[in-house]
C-alpha cells in the first residue's frame, strides 16, 4: 500500500531507501560514532544502530554547529544516511545538507512524521516536490 506525505520543500536529490525511525532528536556531534556509522549516545533511542544508507526519521535537530561540517565529512566517506526527515529541522542541519548534497525535508502536513513512518518502511523522498512516499507491500 502506498502512502503519500506532503512536507515543506527540502534540500538535496530524490532518493529511495529503508527508514530508521525514532521519536528522538539528532545531533551529529552528540549522538553518533561517525567512524563506525552508528548512534553512540547511550540515552538515544537508536543507540547501537547503524544509520548507514538509511532514511533517518526523527523529531528535531539538536545541538552544535559542528553537525553542518560533519554531514559533509560523513558523506565524503559514504558512511552516511541517505536522507534525514524531521518534524522540524534546525538551521544547522539544513545548512549541512546543502553543503553535503544530502537529502533533507521537514514540516509534514499530516502530523508527527515519527509516527507516520515505521522503521523498515521503504520510502521515496522528493525534496523538490516536498513529497515523501511510503511504498510498502
Amino acid at each position, binding site marked *: 500500500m502506498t502512502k503519500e506525505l506532503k512536507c*515543506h520543500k527540502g534540500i538535496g536529490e530524490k532518493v529511495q531507501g529503508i527508514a530508521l525511525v525514532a521519536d528522538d532528536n539528532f545531533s551529529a556531534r552528540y549522538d553518533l560514532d561517525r567512524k563506525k556509522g552508528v548512534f553512540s549516545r547511550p540515552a538515544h533511542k537508536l543507540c547501537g544502530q547503524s544509520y548507514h544508507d538509511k532514511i533517518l526519521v526523527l523529531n528535531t535537530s539538536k545541538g*552544535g*554547529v*559542528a553537525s553542518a*561540517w560533519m554531514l559533509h565529512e560523513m558523506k565524503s566517506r559514504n558512511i552516511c544516511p541517505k536522507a534525514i526527515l524531521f518534524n522540524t529541522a*534546525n538551521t544547522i542541519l*539544513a545548512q549541512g545538507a546543502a553543503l553535503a548534497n544530502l537529502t533533507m525535508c521537514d514540516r509534514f502536513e499530516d502530523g508527527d512524521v515519527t509516527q507516520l513512518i515505521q522503521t523498515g518502511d521503504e520510502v521515496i523522498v522528493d525534496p523538490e516536490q516536498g513529497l515523501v512516499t511510503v511504498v510498502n507491500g
Partner: protein
Amino acid sequence: MNLTDEEKAMLAGEMGEAKRWAIDHQIKVGGMFDAPDLVPVSQAHMMADPESLGEAGGDFLEDMVAKGARVAIPMITDPRGVDLNHYRPLGQSEEMATLERRMIAACEKMGILMTNTCVNYQTIMPPVLGDHVAYGDTGVVIYSNSICGARSNFEGGPSALAAGLTGRTPRYGLHLDENRQATRRFVVREQPKELTDWGVLGALVGKLAGSYWAVPVIEGLEVVPTSDEAKHMGAAMASFGSTPLFHMAGITPEAETLADVGADKLPVEEITKADLDALRAGFGAKGDKIDVVVFAAPQLSIVEMQALAAQCAGKTFKSAVIVCTSPQVYPDATRMGLIDVIEGTGAKVLEGTCFYNQYAREIGEANGWTRLLSNSAKIVNIISGYGYTPALASMERCVASAVAGEIV
C-alpha cells in the same frame, strides 16, 4: 528569493567561483526556510575544527582558496581542535595537527581573523542591539541574540563561510521580528547562586523549550546575571534545547516588559528547586571516581580564570584537569600569574581550543579518561556521545574533587 543586481552577478559567477558557491548555498538554505531575500551582516564567525571538518572539510576550504575566496566582512573563528603548543601530551596525533595547520593556513588566506574563541562577545567585539550577524557557535548565537539583542541564526561552518564571502545571510529565523517573540513563559522559583546554577537553569529551560523555533522568556529572577553567568546559562540552553534566543523579563534588551515579547498572555510554567535538582541528579553523585576534570565550554573569561586560580592556590590534583581559555585571555592570564597558579596544581591550561571539539573520543581513549567532571552544564550534555560518563558540580566542588580523585 529576491536578489539585488550585485547578488545576481554573484550567482552568475561574475564575482568569482567562491562567491558563486557561497550565494548558491545561501539560496538553497534560504529556500528551505522561506527567506524572502538576503540581509547584510556586519560580522561572520565560523566553527571549523579539524574533527568536524575531517579531510573532506580541509579539501573544501583549500578548494575555496584556490577559487579565490576572500571574505567581504570581518570574519572570526570559533575554538580550534588542536592546541599546537600542547597536543602530543594529550594523545593527539601528528595527523590531527597537520589537518589543523592546513585549515588555519586556508582560513588565513581567505582573510579570516583566527580568534579561535567562543567568547568573542566578551573579548573581541560584542554585537549591538539590532545588529545582523552570522555567528557560528550556538553559545555565541544565544548570548548575542539574547543578551546583546543582535540578530543571528545558528550558522554552521559552511553557512558562516558563505556569509563571510558574500557579506550577507538569508533573511529567515531570528533575522525576522516575528520569530523573536516569546513562545514559552517560565517563572523561576529558585534563585541561581553561582555559575553552575545558571547553567542548570539554562539547561532545564532548553530541555523544556526543546526546539530551535521556541523562544523562552524567564521571569522571577531577583538578580541580574553577570556576563559569565549569562554565558553558562545560554550555552547550556542552546545545548539542551537547540535554543537560539531567550528573554529575561526586565533584564534583556528586547524584554523590558513581558508584553514587549508578547509573553503577557502566555500560560505560566514554574521552574522549582525540585525540577532543577532532578536535572542535576542525572550527572554524578558524591563518591563517584573521576578521571578528568574539565573547565571549558564555554572558554573561561579572565574573571573565571581568576576565580579558578584563587581556588587552585597551594593544591595538588590527583585527577587530570584541563582548562580551556581563549587566545585573548591566555596572555593576560599569563601576565597576571594566573596560569602559573592553576598549572602549579598539575592542571593544564589550553589556549584557543575547547575540550569537546578537540577529538574528545581519541584523547579520552589515549589517556584512559571515561569519568568526566565539569562545572559546565553544556559539556555534560555533549560529552556522553564521545564515550564519557559525565558529572556536574560547581567550580569549587570540581577543584576539591580533583584533589580527592572522586566527587566530594
